[in-house]
């Protein structure tokens, strides 16, 4: 078949002039997600929660950071986690040691979490009994950026093994971050990580984001992260 033939095969069937009419919509394709996110936000607000959406590439340390965060917050904040992965409940089991309620979402093949999934998962947690809800998103620096889940704050991780220039390569997600957390700093020397150029890349993509550097394993920098969470918790009603 010729290229011309291919083209004509995809053309619309001919219609008599005047037989059609135009309907104007102006509807955002993500409107349904935006509506679900607004419902989530209203529900979270009603319970006085702080909700933090954690995003990164796979393996940047979201689960370890959360495990150590839950352990340290256990004394003074009631936390819960909704964790998304394509498959397995490995992360939920790792986090369950903390005693906090954990809800695992398996998306099958979907590369991001959507607001209605969070709405459903949140029904498995007694929201009246918690202060902080963390959402561990699917490890992916592209699609999760486009989906508002109804969170108050977005945190995007940058591990020292990711490479300093990730914020420049994936600007959409880093632009959306309220905070960028540099993780695995205990491995910085082994990875040849240049903290100065990482800071430059972060401030280029996300000039207003807070930046925290930490190692969840050794605990260095964890206090800065916990202080940031406390500040956000105090500000949660003025979103």
């Amino acid at each position, binding site marked *: 078949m010729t290229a011309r033939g291919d083209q004509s095969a*995809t*053309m*619309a*069937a001919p*219609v008599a002039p005047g*037989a*059609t*009419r*135009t*309907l*104007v*919509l*102006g*509807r*955002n*394709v*993500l*409107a*349904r997600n935006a509506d679900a996110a607004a419902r989530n936000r209203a529900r979270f607000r009603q319970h006085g929660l702080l909700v933090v959406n954690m995003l990164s590439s796979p393996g940047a340390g979201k689960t370890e950071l959360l495990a150590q965060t839950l352990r340290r917050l256990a004394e003074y904040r009631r936390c819960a986690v909704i964790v998304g992965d394509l498959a397995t409940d490995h992360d939920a089991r790792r986090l369950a040691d903390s005693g906090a309620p954990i809800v695992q979402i398996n998306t099958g093949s979907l590369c991001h979490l959507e607001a209605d999934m969070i709405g459903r998962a949140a029904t498995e947690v007694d929201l009246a009994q918690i202060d902080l809800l963390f959402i561990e998103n699917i490890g992916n620096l*592209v699609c999760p*950026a*486009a989906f508002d889940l109804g969170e108050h704050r977005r945190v995007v991780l940058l591990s020292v093994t990711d490479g300093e220039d990730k914020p*420049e390569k994936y*600007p*959409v997600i880093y*632009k959306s971050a309220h905070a960028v957390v540099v993780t695995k700093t205990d491995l910085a020397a082994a990875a040849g990580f240049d903290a100065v150029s990482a800071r430059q890349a972060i*401030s*280029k*993509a996300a*000039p*207003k984001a807070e930046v925290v550097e930490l190692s969840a394993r050794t605990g260095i920098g964890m206090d800065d992260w916990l202080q940031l969470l406390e500040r956000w918790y105090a500000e949660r009603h003025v979103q």
Partner: protein
Amino acid sequence: MHEVLRLAEDHARKHGAKRIHRIHLRVGPWSGVAVEALRFAFAALKDKTLAEDAELECETKAVVLQCAGCGSPVPAGDRWSACPGCGTLAEAVGSGHELEVAALEVS
């Protein structure tokens, strides 16, 4: 693309249309949407919908950019232009991130 077709079919049915001849999409240059991927998905999904013979028209909008740091206007051009003054990546003024079903032609 599922969502585009769902919105288009719902709207067409609500207005008593039997067929969709054209779907007019407005794609923000910063939406992260690859038009070629949309067309591929549309061809794969439109069978047995009201839009099975429809054309997909994708209008890419121009955006006005400003620096996300200092707010200076940034000349549009490169997708992720940096501010000539301070080097911060620009952001779109107003929108630029939208993926919108603008209009349908139906009968």
